Structures are given as C-alpha cells and as structure tokens.
C-alpha cells in the first residue's frame, strides 16, 4: 500500500514538472494560433534555441544559471521579432498549408544551424550547486531542481494570468482573439500587438526550453521530436486561451508520466490515444471558443 502511494506521489511530482515545461513552451503557440490563426510548427525551435543558448553560455563562458537563462530568452526574443517582421507576418490568416510548409522549413534550418554551431551531441545541463541534489519536504525528499521547476512554473503561470487579465495589453490580446475586426475598428494596433504577442510567446518558449533542459534534453532534433507534444497541448487545450493549455499540459504531463511508468514498452501510445479521444469529444479543445 505504501508502495503504491509512493509511486503515485512520484508520478504526480515528475508529471507536474513535465507539465510546467510543456505549458511554458506551448502557451505562446496557443496564443499565436488563436490570435493570428497561424500554425507555427517551428515554435519548438524557439524553445530549442533557448536551451542551446543557455547551455552554451553556461558551459562556454561560465555565466551563472539565472543570467544565462535571461540571455537566452533575450536572444530568442530578438530572433523571433526579426522572423516575425520578415516572414511570419506575410502568412497571417493565409493558407494552412503554406504555414505548415514554411515553419517546417524553419525547423529544418534550425536543426542544421544548431548542428553546425554546437555539434550533434546532446548539450549537458548542469543545474547550479544550490539547485542540485535532493530537498527534504518533511514527508519525503524530492530532486531539488524539479521542485524549483514546479515553483518557477507556478509563479510564471500566475504572472502570465495576471498580465492577460489585469493589464491593458492583456485586454487588447483578449479583444483581438475574440473579434479581430472589431478590435481593429476600435483602434487597437493589431500589427504591433501580433509582434508583441509573438515575441512574448517565443520568449516563454525559450524560458521553457532552458528551464526544462533537464527533462526535455537539448538535442538537434528537439524541435521535431517534441513537436507532437506541444501540438497536443495546444489542440487539447483549445486555441487562444491561456487556461486551456495549462489544464492540457497538466493532463498530458501527468498521464504521460503515469503511462510510461505503468507500461513503458508502449512509449507514447496511450497519450496519443487519449489525445484522439479528447479531440473527438472536444473538437475545439477543452477551453476552445466556438
């Protein structure tokens, strides 16, 4: 009995950590899809770049963890703004297929570029001394870094929710998701709003990629291998919402950890099956708008 209880806690804990990473990376994707109607398959590439920049700054220049993470986020935000203005903007509200093709192309370019710059090996992720080892929470001990990850994730989720619900910028985003034309009519500069949202989403992805480098290892095919997970979180959560992807990330993170604990030889099979059923039940996602 105690064994089962202990396994449940363990699965819940690791599932929660995975969920936080998935959420940070996917929430930007959900908002850009809901807001601009853009299927950005390359979103994971921003997370991957974040991870690469962070591990590179840490291992090559001995930059402390926090600074390296901030540097990675800033770097990715700059890159994403340039890409948004040059490429993405042309395809808003356009053909789905064009979007899929262009962003797949961007994934390939990113894969080649990171292999060229950083080589084909997995980037080592060494958490700072203060965050490594185990932490004792009274009833049992947990890996410190993952505990930190969950706390960080919870804080960021709260901040993001406050930003979207309580600020002027958030109100503009919500207005534009609900009714783009009306938002333009009342004088919201949607072009600038798109750029800002895109940059914010990419920055969060970079943050997720960097923070989660220990759970989703930084390898050259990161953007392609994890793409299905990010898309599942977005599609199951529902487009254009920030609450939906959170619930979906929790669902995916915890059930994926549980399935892989119970029946590891089936890999991700059950999570795909679950996705299929959920999407049939809620074609617009759990919190999608009609």
């Amino acid at each position, binding site marked *: 009995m105690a064994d089962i209880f202990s396994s449940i806690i363990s699965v819940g804990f690791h599932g929660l950590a995975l969920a936080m990473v998935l959420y940070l990376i996917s929430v930007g994707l959900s908002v850009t899809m809901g807001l601009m109607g853009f299927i950005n398959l390359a979103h994971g590439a921003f997370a991957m770049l974040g991870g690469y920049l962070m591990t590179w700054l840490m291992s090559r220049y001995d930059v402390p963890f926090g600074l390296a993470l901030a540097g990675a986020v800033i770097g990715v935000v700059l890159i994403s703004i340039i890409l948004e203005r040059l490429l993405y903007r042309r395809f808003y509200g356009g053909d789905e297929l064009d979007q899929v093709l262009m962003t797949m*192309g961007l994934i390939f370019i990113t894969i080649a570029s990171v292999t060229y710059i950083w080589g084909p090996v997995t980037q080592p992720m060494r958490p700072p001394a203060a965050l490594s080892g185990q932490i004792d929470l009274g009833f049992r001990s947990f890996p410190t870094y993952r505990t930190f990850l969950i706390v960080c994730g919870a804080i960021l989720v709260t901040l993001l929710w406050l930003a979207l619900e309580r600020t002027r910028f958030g109100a503009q985003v919500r207005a534009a998701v609900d009714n783009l034309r009306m938002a333009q009519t009342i004088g919201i500069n949607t072009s600038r709003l798109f750029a800002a949202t895109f940059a914010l989403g990419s920055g969060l992805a970079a943050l997720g990629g960097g923070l989660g480098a220990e759970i989703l290892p930084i390898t050259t095919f990161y953007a392609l291998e994890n793409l*299905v997970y990010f898309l599942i979180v*977005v599609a199951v959560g529902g*487009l254009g919402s920030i609450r939906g992807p959170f619930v979906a990330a929790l669902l995916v993170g915890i059930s994926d950890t549980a399935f892989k604990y119970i029946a590891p030889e089936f890999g991700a*099979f059950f999570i795909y099956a679950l996705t*299929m059923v959920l999407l*049939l039940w809620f074609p617009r996602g759990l919190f999608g708008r009609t």
Partner: protein
Amino acid sequence: MSHLTPSADRRAADIAAFSRRHRFHWFEALPWLIAVAAYFAFPNYLALGSQILAIILFALSVDLVLGYAGIVTLGHAAFFGVGAYTAGILAANGWGEPISGLLAAAIAAACIGLASGWIILRTTGLTLLMQTLVVAAMLYELANKAYRFTGGADGLQGMSVWPIFGMFRFDMFGNTAYFYCLIVLFIGWLVVRNTVNSSFGRSLTGIRENVGRMHAIGAPVAQRRLIVYALSAALAGVAGALTAQTAQFVGLNVLNLERSGTILVMLIIGGIGQLYGAFIGVPLYMIAQDRFAEADPTYWYFWIGLAMVFIVVFLRGGIFGVVERLLARSRKR
C-alpha cells in the same frame, strides 16, 4: 429567349472543357518516356530510380487527399507504413508472391484508412491535422512495440520476394524492380487521373473550395471525403509495399513524422492539385537528397529548409504552377 442563349453556349463550353481535361495530351507521355530513358541512361542508379517511382506513387496518393479533397494531412506515412509492413511481414513469413503482396498491402491500408477516416474526418482544420498526426504516431508506437512481427527498431529482416509471375526474378542490379515499380506507378496514375477527372473528383474539388455549398446542393460530403481518404490510403499502401519489396527491408522510419512531412515538401515543390507535381517534385527532391545528403546531412537539412521557405514566399504553386503561369502569360501576348 435571348437571355438563355449565352447560358446554353456556356454549358456547351463547360462540357467541352471538361472532356478536354480527360483526353490524353502529348506532354502526359513525357514522364514515362523520361523514366524509360533514365533506365538506359543511368544503369547504375536503378535502385534509386525504383525508390523514386514508388515515392511518386506515394506523393500522388497525398495529392489526391490534399490537392483535390483539401484534407491537410501530416500523417500519411501511416498508410505507407501499413502497406510496407503488410508486404514485408508476408514476404518474411513464407508468402513472397509480389502482386498479391501489393493487393494485401492496398487492402490493409484501405481498411486502416476507412477506420481512421471514419473517426477523424468529422473534424477540420488544426484538429484534423492533429488527428492525422496522432494516428500515424500511434501506429509507429505499435510497430515499435510489436517487434516480434515487425522487428521493432532493428527493422524487418529476412524478406524473400518471389519472382513476378514466377518469371521475373528481382535481380541485384534492380532491372526487374525498376520496371515493376514503373508499371505499378503507371496503373496507380491511371487510377488517380480517372478519379480526379470523374464527376466524383469534381465534387471533391467542390468540397475543397466550398463545403457549405456542396452541403446545400445535397452532395454527400462526409461519404465522399471518406471514400477518397480510403482510396488514397490504398495507393499509399501500395507505394509502401513497393518500397518494401524492392528494398527487401522495412524500417520503423516508414511510419515517422519526417516521412509524412517530407512527402508534403516533395509534392509542394512540384505543385499541388495538378497531378504532375509529384512527377516533378519527387525526383528533384530525391536526386538532390542522394547527391548532397550522403555527404553531409546537416547541410542537406539547411538547404531543404531554405528551399521550403523560398517556395512558400516566392514560388506559389510549386514548379508546375510557375511554369503554368509563364505559359499563360506567353499565350496572352
């Protein structure tokens, strides 16, 4: 009465245009002439040639659902893989007769197409895209798990394919395989060509362009989408079986996301919804891949990625579309 005349004229013109589409043009012989010429010109590249022919068939099957029915799929490797494994497992377990292997592959893939299509085709847009992706991903995990039948990550080994009609042995130079693939592709192409030029094919285009109106005129939209999905799955299955039989090996990569993605790329390079895009895009992509990817896969990814972005930004409609536009412009002058 006068107001009726133009519409009668218009009707006659429409019918004429419709039957013109179905008549064979001289340029339609070109791919086949080139394929036969390539056999004599590049005897050392017949293995690559057979692969290209099989993948052209796969691209045709994708064109049918994507270009004509407008179903954006990121999971067509599911059917390619089911076909490859069906033919492969048959040949590895004592039934190496190739033609019946192809048929079995077609039936198996069509069944999976029908079953999955019946479930997922009721969704649209991103949800549908996700469903196609998830179906392929599930089959991938299953194939990985069922290593007793599929060989799992090591791949399916020990296939022995019998001679075609008991007469034409698959030789090590790939002569038989090349013509085998060419003939199967030709039959597949006839099937696709007849389908898209039939009234059934026209109604698919109608569904792609305006679902609401097709519903309004009483077309059985869901049924037609399901039929074309299953037909396309069968063709993709045959393409997978061809690859398995000619390579005598099936790896897990027949089912992965990369295969579903790259087939879209090849098709889009050539041009979507034009029947001939596959014949341009697939050889271009695969020959370039053969030349460059072996030497340095990293650069290959870079250039193919760049080409994809370039095509979407500058070459709308693929190479075939650009050629058609240039022709139309020169005709106007």
